[in-house]
């Protein structure tokens, strides 16, 4: 278990860093209309099948960065490529990106099930099929029993889990997650961490994951990117030398605590 492997070996199907990166972020700058420079000269890349975490101070531009990768808005300078295309075209042509937003962003007029199967509905999948996938995702996040409830009847953490289920049900190849587990209790969080890793390994998903929980970042990722305060840049990259699959026991290993300590230290300096 505790063998240190390089992360790109975890899924044999992925070619690793020698081939073209799935996501290429090159000297990106993003200035908002009010003049706020959110990102500046930010570069990094993500290879297919990797699980990359972003950590950084509050307001440093993590969410902005995820939105840029998802092609949800223009950048002011630099270049972003996903599978060699502009993020927007990549998303539109492959239809395989999912995003867990920082807020739950549920449709209040749809019940939980309706919210979860929305991406499938938008893709035009037949109702029966998508209900099945949605229920399965709900079971994964432990909310199968409230499938008929409306968002306003849920607690904050439950809403976030619905949002998570929606992304899982979409079966993306690229999964962008913005603090998906921030409002979950420790137990649920750890269970879901395990589930997420299991699914990703199974399906070969590439994940860009924003979190404030360094333990979580280290537990999940092959690489942790540390961002500076605004304007955000990647100031450090910490490879996590722990083999996949990662079982809960990883948390007790010295490599684990060592990496966590290193990231926290880098964060403090950022």
């Amino acid at each position: 278990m505790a063998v240190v492997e390089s992360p790109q070996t975890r899924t044999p199907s992925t070619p690793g860093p020698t081939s073209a990166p799935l996501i290429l972020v090159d000297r990106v700058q993003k200035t908002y209309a009010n003049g706020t420079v959110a990102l500046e000269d930010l570069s990094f890349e993500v290879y297919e099948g990797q699980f990359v975490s972003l950590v950084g101070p509050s307001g440093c531009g993590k969410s902005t960065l995820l939105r840029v990768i998802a092609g949800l808005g223009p950048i002011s300078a630099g270049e972003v490529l996903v599978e060699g295309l502009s993020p927007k075209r990549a998303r539109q042509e492959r239809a395989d990106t999912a995003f867990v937003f920082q807020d739950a962003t549920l449709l209040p007029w749809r019940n939980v099930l309706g919210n979860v199967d929305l991406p499938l509905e938008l893709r035009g999948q037949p109702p029966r099929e998508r209900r099945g996938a949605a229920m399965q995702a709900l079971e994964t996040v432990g909310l199968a029993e409230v499938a008929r409830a409306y968002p306003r009847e849920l607690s904050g953490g439950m809403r976030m889990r619905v949002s998570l289920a929606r992304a899982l049900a979409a079966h993306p190849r690229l999964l962008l997650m913005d603090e998906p587990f921030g409002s979950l209790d420790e137990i649920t969080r750890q269970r879901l961490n395990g589930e997420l890793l299991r699914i990703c390994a199974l399906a070969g998903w590439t994940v860009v994951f924003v979190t404030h929980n360094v333990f979580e970042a280290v537990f999940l990722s092959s690489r942790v990117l540390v961002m500076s305060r605004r304007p955000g840049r990647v100031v450090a990259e910490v490879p996590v030398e722990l083999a996949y699959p990662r079982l809960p026991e990883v948390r007790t290993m010295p490599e684990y605590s060592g990496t966590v300590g290193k990231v926290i230290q880098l964060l403090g300096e950022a």
Partner: protein
Amino acid sequence: MGTTTRPATRNGLVEWLWRAAPPVGAFVVFVALWQVVVTLLRVPHYLLPTPSLIVGAWVDRIDILLVALSSTFLSALCGFGLSIVVGMAVALVMSQSKLLERSLYPYAILLQTIPIVAIAPLIVIWVGAGMPAVVIIAFLISLFPIITNTTTGLTSTDHNLVSMFELYNASWWQRMAKLRLPFALPYVMTGLRISSGLAVIGAIVGEFIAGIGGLRGGLGYVIVSAANRLEMAYLFAAALTSSLLGIIIFIGVSLVSARFLRHWHESAIQRDM
């Protein structure tokens, strides 16, 4: 704390009575006040007849009034239906960009504010006097609130939800049908509430302007002929019948609205915490 929630298992009929009682009570008080004030202040009956006189006139001419009501009802409903369809279509177009909105709004306002008498001859010549012209006028008069409210609604969509739809590559139609329109529903429904009454006014104004007298002339016709003969009680009977029609359509719209919004919109749900 003290306060505990009411048991939810109340008898349905009692519940219904409980909900209906205050409006009915208000109505009784209103009518009684009207009767008493008009009688006490000796307001002459040709200015403001008492409720009893109006009811008398109503009962007397119930046959004519009911025929007129049904005719006006039909025209108002057709006009209302037309403005729902056209109004929402126009709003859909206008909500596409600020530019379109700015370019098209003036013409919507033009249609709203142009005095009907100016275009009545055109309408009568094009579609003929009688019901078609009346429907067109009811449509023109009830159109604007639907356009305005729907446009505001469609441009108010929560930005995060828009991003989410974009992310999942929703088509234009999907974005409209599954996001913008449902989100705009509280606005649309408010627009419909306003328009429902305007459609009734429109039908009556239409009957004034382009209706035909006689056999199928709705409430507008009755009102004009009552005014001509100075039969104020009869006039008020017809006028209040038209208001009643407005109230009925309004209630219909409100029920539909409650049906659509009850699960999620603040204005339609009863919060218990």
